[in-house]
């Protein structure tokens, strides 16, 4: 009898635990679900836009710019890629940098849009990174060649879910830009102002 009572007690405790921990587990899942839904919707939209033959190249680029502004947390990404130099920069430099960085992203990635050739985005699942961020895993399947692994780092913000990084085959775009910018800023006599000028030059030559 004794063991049976113990068994009952055990069941009760387990049930109580389940009830207690369910809400938080549910909340965590909700965050990942929201991230997943967000990437799914933009993925569908992106593939539809790219495959739409009635749109001109400029129209596609306009849509890409809108997509960048609405789906990415550009301020956070900009601050991240400037790294330790964000604090050194004056407020004007910070605002200037954010603007130039956004334009730089547009020009660097815009021409990739033109090279679209029937790839498909297959969204898999999401894992939690911390209490605000999730990683959404997806695959770009190509007509020829093995699929490419693409992960989206999505963060819960006051304006809803925003993308803060894109990780292609384990290579973080934010990390790559940060590393490159740090190297430029730390060169003697360059600084944040020099970086801004270099980015401006880059945008000019790329858009010609």
């Amino acid at each position, binding site marked *: 009898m004794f063991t049976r009572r113990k068994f009952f007690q055990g069941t009760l405790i387990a049930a109580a635990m389940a009830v207690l921990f369910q809400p938080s587990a549910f909340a965590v899942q909700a965050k990942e679900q929201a991230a997943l839904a967000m990437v799914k919707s933009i993925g569908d939209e992106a593939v539809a836009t790219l495959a739409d033959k009635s749109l001109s190249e400029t129209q596609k680029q306009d849509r890409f710019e809108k997509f960048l502004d609405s789906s990415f947390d550009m301020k956070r990404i900009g601050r991240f890629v400037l790294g330790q130099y964000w604090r050194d920069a004056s407020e004007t430099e910070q605002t200037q940098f954010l603007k130039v960085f956004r334009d730089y992203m547009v020009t660097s990635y815009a021409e990739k849009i033109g090279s679209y050739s029937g790839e498909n985005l297959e969204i898999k699942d999401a*894992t939690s990174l*911390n*209490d605000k961020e999730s*990683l959404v*895993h997806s695959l770009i399947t190509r007509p020829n060649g093995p699929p490419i692994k693409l992960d989206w780092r999505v963060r819960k913000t006051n304006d809803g879910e925003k993308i*803060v990084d894109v990780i292609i085959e*384990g*290579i973080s775009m934010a*990390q790559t830009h940060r590393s490159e910018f740090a190297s430029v800023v730390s060169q003697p006599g360059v600084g944040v102002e020099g970086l801004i000028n270099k980015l401006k030059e880059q945008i000019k030559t790329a858009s010609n």
Partner: protein
Amino acid sequence: MGLRSKSSYLKAGLTAIALLVTVSGCATPQQKDGKAVAVMYNEVYDPLEPMNRYFFDVNYALDALFLKPVAEMYRGVVPAPVRDSVTNFLTNLSQPIYLINNVLQGDLDGAGDNMGAFFTNTFLGVGGLFDVAKLNTPVEDMGQTFAKWGIQEGPYLVVPLFGPRTTRAAVGGIADYYLDPINYAAKENDIEHAGLIRTAAHGLDQRSRSIEALDEIEKNSIDFYAAIRSLYRQNRNNMILNGASNSTQLPDMSFDDDDEPVKKD
């Protein structure tokens, strides 16, 4: 070949490993300014930057003069199926050293795939010209094995002719050469310059498949050297993890301490 030369290979290999351990020991990050230095170390450890930039420029010039034009010609003249067969053949020759490294890393499933791919493609795929097994075996080298063993990556290097390497990967590459059964088989059969030809063919194969990607990185970067350095190191880490998504790799992107740090698992 005699027993003596075999033992001298072993000696060279052991010396290389000893050198690596010494170098990686010297390369422990300095904790002078506390956190900032440690973080910078995680991003990049490049104490030889001026020399590396010099060799980067030398390699860039050599590439522009020789490798890239030859790679473009190769791609323009040789039809795609033949080029695929070259890739398949070179990958098949690498399966034995991949297998050795998978065993040394304790990845027996990976080693089994290498074994299966090697025998299937050698016998059913006409000496490795066709990938019949379709096992998509990832590249495994001594640099990755050293990483699995916990050896630090050491300073970043740009090796003349060969390009970017971590010190760990550079020493690993030498170790791979002396461990690779294919190189011994070539020696036994008196095939001259086998290693050189294989390396050159591998370089050409790789270069011909990365023309657009590299051009684009160069075009969009404001510091090509730093961009390549970051991409190389991230790609190496991805190879060491065999592509498994790992959140510990991702940097923290919260600035206001308003959330927990990235979960380390």
